């Protein structure tokens, strides 16, 4: 193993010492070969690979006129092959020409505009080679929910460095909060407050989903604090296993919650889950007052999926803003200090327990809201939704994208949620038809995620889009061993 490694390193170094022209032609030859091989399997895949490789080479071209010429040629070519691909690539390339000062605003702004408009043009988009069609708006909603959960977990794992293997417990807590207070579950009570789309005399709690989202966040944070208080004094792997324990206990309570302790009290309706859940909406009064801009009822609206998509986007934006501001706050810096060296942080006066508990509460808050929104979107919650697999799924998102980096986590979460919803099935179908295989790819989803975890941790532990600080920690190492003499 060690010999192999040094051998590879030697070969790399010898390759680097070759003249530039030789190196570039070797690369170009290899890449051309790749394009030809892929193109022979599936023409569109070959074209796609060619475009990606061309764009990757654009950086190397120093002369702006030549670069512009190649770019225009590329866009024209793409416009002929597929209009939507041409437009997207043109927008992307145009952004690279902006001065750096403008880029800081223009890149996120354009991305946001593209996401907001997504439901309008998704029908006209090209098919991605290998991955199939762009995600539908419904898939988009699920992706947004997972982005929000991953951002919440990022506070715990990425900022504070506490490995949480039971994040699904917070998701479950949020989902059940909405299910309890916006459904027929507690039929002995009759309480209405701002609910839409239900008859005024319907039994059960019926509270406006918007209030419940906040309530779910708060209740979940409280759960997080309750879980955290006794356990957060444990370090590292012990904490991970305890969170895992809670992540297994809560779903089992949900599964057995229809006959708690033999009293016959039905808390969660057991394996049948709670369904239907009242739809979100602003009610007729607000809707009429704003001239129909605020929809009265999401479920009966003509463009239901789009409404859910945009609302999810607003929630994600709030989460992004909060994560971003928190990271640079006093609390955020305390989290990072604890992550890097707990003992040193304590010596510098960072209150360990309080700071960690805040990380838990914050992460739980976003997880709870995401879970609540997801339940409202699906109009149902089942105990089967909350397996350990989901905790790992969200963890893979955070790790693949880059722990601690908001943009990395967003990309990782969106990509993996898409793979989970549609991408893996499409890719599997492509592999089976083009390579003549017979593999049920989605069945091995978690094996694939396991490989992702392993490969990322072995070769690029800072993730695909790392935060520079996290990268330095992984590459230079930090003081991670507990200091015995401080403890006693």
């Amino acid at each position: 193993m060690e010999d192999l490694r040094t051998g590879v390193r030697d070969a790399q170094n010898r390759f680097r010492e070759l003249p530039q022209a030789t190196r570039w032609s070797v690369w170009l030859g290899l890449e051309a070969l790749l394009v030809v091989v892929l193109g022979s399997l599936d023409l569109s895949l070959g074209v796609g690979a060619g475009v990606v490789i061309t764009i990757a080479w654009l950086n190397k071209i120093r002369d702006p006129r030549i670069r512009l010429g190649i770019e225009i040629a590329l866009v024209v070519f793409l416009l002929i092959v597929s209009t939507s691909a041409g437009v997207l690539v043109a927008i992307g390339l145009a952004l690279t020409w902006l001065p750096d000062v403008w880029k800081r605003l223009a890149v996120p702004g354009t991305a946001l505009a593209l996401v907001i408009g997504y439901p309008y043009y998704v029908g006209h988009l090209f098919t991605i080679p290998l991955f199939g069609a762009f995600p539908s708006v419904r898939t988009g909603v699920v992706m947004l929910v997972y982005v929000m959960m991953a951002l919440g977990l990022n506070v715990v794992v990425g900022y504070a460095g506490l490995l949480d293997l039971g994040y699904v417990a917070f998701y479950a807590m949020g989902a059940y909060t909405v299910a309890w207070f916006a459904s027929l579950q507690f039929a002995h009570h009759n309480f209405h407050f701002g609910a839409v789309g239900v008859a005024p005399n319907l039994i059960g709690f019926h509270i406006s989903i918007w209030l419940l989202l906040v309530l779910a966040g708060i209740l979940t944070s409280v759960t997080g604090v309750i879980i955290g208080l006794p356990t957060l004094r444990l370090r590292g792997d012990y904490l991970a296993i305890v969170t895992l324990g809670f992540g297994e206990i809560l779903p089992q309570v949900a599964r057995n919650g229809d006959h708690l302790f033999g009293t016959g009290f039905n808390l969660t309706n057991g394996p049948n889950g709670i369904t239907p859940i009242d739809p979100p909406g602003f009610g007729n009064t607000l809707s009429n007052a704003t001239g129909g801009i605020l929809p009265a009822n999401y479920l009966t609206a003509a463009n239901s999926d789009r409404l859910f998509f945009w609302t999810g986007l607003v929630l994600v934006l709030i989460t992004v803003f909060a994560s971003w501001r928190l990271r640079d706050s006093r609390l955020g810096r305390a989290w990072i200090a604890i992550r890097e060296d707990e003992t040193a942080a304590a010596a510098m006066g960072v209150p360990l327990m309080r700071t960690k508990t805040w990380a838990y509460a914050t992460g739980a808050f976003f997880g709870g809201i995401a879970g609540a929104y997801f339940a409202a979107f699906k109009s149902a919650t089942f105990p089967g939704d909350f397996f350990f697999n989901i905790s790992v799924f969200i963890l893979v998102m955070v790790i693949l994208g880059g722990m601690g980096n908001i943009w990395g986590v967003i990309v990782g979460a969106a990509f993996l949620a898409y793979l989970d919803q549609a991408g893996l099935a499409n890719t599997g179908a492509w592999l089976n038809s083009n390579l003549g295989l017979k593999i049920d790819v989605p069945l091995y989803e978690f094996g694939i995620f396991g490989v992702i975890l392993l490969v990322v941790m072995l070769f690029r532990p800072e993730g695909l889009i790392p935060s520079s600080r996290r990268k330095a920690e992984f590459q230079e190492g930090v003081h991670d061993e507990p200091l015995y003499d401080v403890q006693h």
Partner: protein
Amino acid sequence: MATEAQTTSAPLLGRVKGLGVVPVLGFTLVALLVFWIVKNFYEFPADSTQVLLIGVTTGAIYALVALGYTLVYGILELINFAHGDVFMLGGMISATFSVQVFGLGTGGGIGKWFLVLATLLIAMGFCGLINTTVELIAYRPLRGAPRLVPLITAIGMSFILQNVGLAWKGPNFISIPSILPHSNVFSIGGVTYTWNKLIVVFITVPVLIGLVYLVQNTRQGKAMRATAQDKDAAAMMGINVNRTISFTFLIAGMLAGAAGLLYALYVTNVRYDQGFQLGLIAFTAAVFGGIGNLPGAVLGALCIGLIQAFNEGFNWHAPGSDWTQSIVFAVLILILVFRPEGLLGERTPEGA
């Protein structure tokens, strides 16, 4: 009188305060548990004894898996999440060899036992090899990395092995004929003890004795203990640390293989996801006994086996099998909160 009462009550209160809330809560819990067990045994002696025997049998299987966790944790301070899945693969190879290759069934004479023994050796070798490979791929390159990194690769490895099992045997339960005889060893006053349970104990005990001998009395065992204590110092004393760690993983994997065979024969079915659940239970057992402590792991496994059996089998106020998992994890959390060093372990900085 009044002043006397005050003076006697003041130190009493002080002592209670000195004890703290946590131990008081802990003692109350233990007392309630003991009362519950005694009450059940008093009301239904036959049923409860039967349940106790079942608990000892499952505890024996848990012990084999728990020892694997404890060995690895002792030497690398790593929770080897993939260990449960190595155990699952051991169950699968046992099923393949005992049923498909050797064609074992319910009947058969003395020759059957040689084939069962052969399957045991094959499963142990196979799992030892897998576990060593896992260490080589997923943990060895990460020796200097922050401690959470190998933990994450362990989770990844666990999922990979689970999917290997899924690809190998498919998503359904693979049932195995009851190769172990179910006839009675004895049946006294409504308490029956069947041979299959006794055989599980018969196979477990020699394996455990062999392990203790290996760790306590051999050169390799000495190297393991030295490496667990201080890797740098061990290396300076001329111990090949990497080889010792590989050897530890080999032993742990062999124990998991033995457990895989016993579980497959005792429960008579295997499935790709059984390893994860049982692995967590066994890990709980290892923590219960004091992680890194070999007799502790066995004791903890027996306790967890008994707790599970009592919970599922007792007649008076038992929560039932729906709650087994929650109870095992609650035990885990309670131990980590109240007594992180476990029953027999030494206090570690993780818990302090």
